[in-house]
């Protein structure tokens, strides 16, 4: 199938056509021509006002609930949500039931994406069955397509982390750490701040995060291995990671979109859709995260898409589960963040996550593979629950007016245009 994209603004910060308005002609899986004006016949011509195109977006952390909790989200509904969000790739976390702890499970997940424009690059568990006792089969899982290893929100003790970091050097993959010390925050619900005082909800202090960042950085330096931190939310963690990068430690980090868009003020109304882990932090932390993203201390943004059904979310705040969905609204969420321009955003959701996770990436040129997201950064619309493809509707954006939307994805010869 051939497709012609008419007059689209190319957002490709490292490429030759960055910010240029061009026609793009795609044959099958390949971009064959980029010109000011192309008049070749095509099976599909996309001509939409304010059309933008970039390398395909990649949501490097989503928590689909398949296998185990398919009522909340299965791989197929999750992939649809991701595609509607403009993703051509996602990485699913392994703490499902059963956990993604061997090649069979990694292959099961990978196979589900076979006919989708969205590729799946799963994480495997850091320890056998995610039980925190022994390191898992990193090599075997990597061969089957796992791109990193984590026990999700379950912290591992220093000894396990030490051996995992050491052993990972045989595999050319990455330890992914969600840095939290649960002995400090106990049953914490919200950021330790004025917000925890005003709501009376138990608090999660910044130090519960950055203490673990310190530990893992020390272990990474000692083992001369590499580590990726997911869900950085505090200024102190940012400062530690910035220094570590300066000192040559192989560290990368991501931030969840909602930590850039919201602060702990949101929980004052006890709206459980804002109950997330790490908790929404202070304005000072939020500004530090934006700054860190701009100076490269934080490498990329992901959604931490966490589907939860009504039974686990429409509850008293401290009984509700943590998490919000977000892969479909990732771009719109980022549009609310002052201080990030379009190139920053595309860098952070398309290019840098691929570099960190060692996935293929090339600039947009003639003869490169067509892995593209088309979008309109200015499109205004209101979001209804029915618009969300996710089986769970735990989004604080329902009923809100949003700006910026993906219009289609093109990848592996599959073309999905949802708005014309």
């Amino acid at each position, binding site marked *: 199938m051939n497709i012609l994209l008419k007059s689209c603004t190319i957002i490709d910060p490292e490429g030759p056509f960055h910010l240029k308005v061009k026609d793009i002609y795609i044959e099958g899986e390949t971009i064959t021509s980029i010109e000011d004006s192309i008049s070749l016949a095509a099976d599909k011509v996309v001509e939409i006002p304010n059309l933008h195109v970039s390398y395909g977006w990649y949501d490097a952390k989503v928590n689909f609930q398949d296998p185990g909790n398919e009522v909340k989200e299965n791989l197929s509904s999750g992939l649809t949500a991701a595609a509607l969000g403009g993703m051509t790739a996602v990485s699913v976390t392994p703490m499902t039931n059963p956990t993604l702890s061997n090649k069979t499970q990694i292959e099961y997940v990978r196979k589900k994406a076979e006919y989708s424009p969205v590729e799946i690059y799963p994480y495997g568990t850091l320890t056998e069955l995610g039980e925190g006792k022994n390191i898992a089969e990193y090599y075997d899982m990597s061969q089957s397509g796992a791109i990193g290893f984590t026990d999700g929100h379950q912290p591992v003790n220093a000894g396990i982390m030490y051996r995992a970091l050491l052993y990972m050097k045989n595999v050319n993959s990455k330890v992914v750490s969600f840095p939290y010390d649960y002995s400090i925050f*106990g*049953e914490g619900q919200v950021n*330790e*701040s*004025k917000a*925890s*005082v*005003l*709501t*009376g*909800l*138990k*608090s999660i*202090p910044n130090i519960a995060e950055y203490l673990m960042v310190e530990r893992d950085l020390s272990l990474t330096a000692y083992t001369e291995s590499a580590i990726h931190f997911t869900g950085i939310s505090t200024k102190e963690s940012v400062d530690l990671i910035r220094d570590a990068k300066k000192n040559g430690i192989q560290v990368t980090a991501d931030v969840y979109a909602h930590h850039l868009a919201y602060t702990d003020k949101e929980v004052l*109304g*006890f709206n459980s859709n804002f109950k997330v882990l790490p908790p929404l932090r202070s304005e000072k932390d939020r500004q530090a995260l934006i700054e860190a993203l701009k100076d490269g201390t934080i490498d990329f943004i992901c959604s931490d898409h966490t589907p939860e059904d009504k*039974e686990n979310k*429409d*509850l*008293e*705040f*401290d*009984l509700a589960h943590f998490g919000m969905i977000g892969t479909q609204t990732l771009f719109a969420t980022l549009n609310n963040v002052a201080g990030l321009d379009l190139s920053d955003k595309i860098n952070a959701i398309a290019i840098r996550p691929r570099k960190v996770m060692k996935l293929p990436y090339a600039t947009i040129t003639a003869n490169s593979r067509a892995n593209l997201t088309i979008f309109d950064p200015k499109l205004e619309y209101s979001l209804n629950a029915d618009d969300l493809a996710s089986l769970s509707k735990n989004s604080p954006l329902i009923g809100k007016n949003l700006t910026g939307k993906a219009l289609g994805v093109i990848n592996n010869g599959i073309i999905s245009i949802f708005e014309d």
Partner: protein
Amino acid sequence: MDNLSVKHIIGIEDLTKADIELIFKTADNFKQVINRPIKKVPSLRDITIANLFFENSTRTRLSFELAEKRLSADIVNFSAASSSVKKGETLVDTVNNILSMKVDMVVMRHPNPGAAKFLSERIGAKVINAGDGTHEHPTQALLDAYSIREKHGEDFKGKKVVIVGDILHSRVALSNIFCLQKLGAEVMVCGPTTLVPKFIGELGVKVEHNLRKALEWCDVANMLRIQLERQDMKYFPSLREYTMLFGLDKKLLNSLDKKITIMHPGPINRGVEITSDVADSDQSIILQQVENGVAIRMAVIYLLAGQIGR
């Protein structure tokens, strides 16, 4: 003004100074009523109130019940131990049951912060928060301030009140801070460093960890009950040691160069927060607090009921 600015009593944070003063004036009238030979008025004959207690309570529940009976309302009572509501489905189901029962007003105590707000957003009835976990306990704060007003006069400006004890887990402390500050008083909190939230200063209160210094500063000391059941881990080693650092005895009280007023929301752990001779001394207004509790709750119920179209 003869109407409240709020539709429910969820927390003192939502009330204005005028609301609080209106509640006090209304309570003045009801305090006369409950000291008459016939302690009852027919105002709420056509109103049904459900008292839902998802957490153990004796005096708050009795005080509300008495207030409702003095106003001639019909009442239904429901209590459940907190263990049976751990799963959380109960509150949503309770909501639906209340809707079916067509009650006009709900008084609820619940172990989870925000539960009263949760309820008020989902039912048509009026909601009075009788304590939601570690969030707020508005009627307690109102009766505390009302009792201070009775003893020290209507003008709170310049009055100094210290709240002593477990500030971290106390709904009474938070509601009291809001209420006293709105009325113009100065507030200090005093307690073990593990039980005073790091960011409490952002509410504009003074923070002190030395009981003697706190008492020397204040006109009124509100000694909170130590609630071990609300603590998920040990924040101080033992009650013995708490008493050594934060217990108030007669010797300490008498060593101050002024006569401060002693309050306690009850029930007292005698010999822990305060000794018996302090609780029973003429500086204590603990029993007046209990009496005023009924008048304040009558006032709140009466004012909210006035908003119901009848």
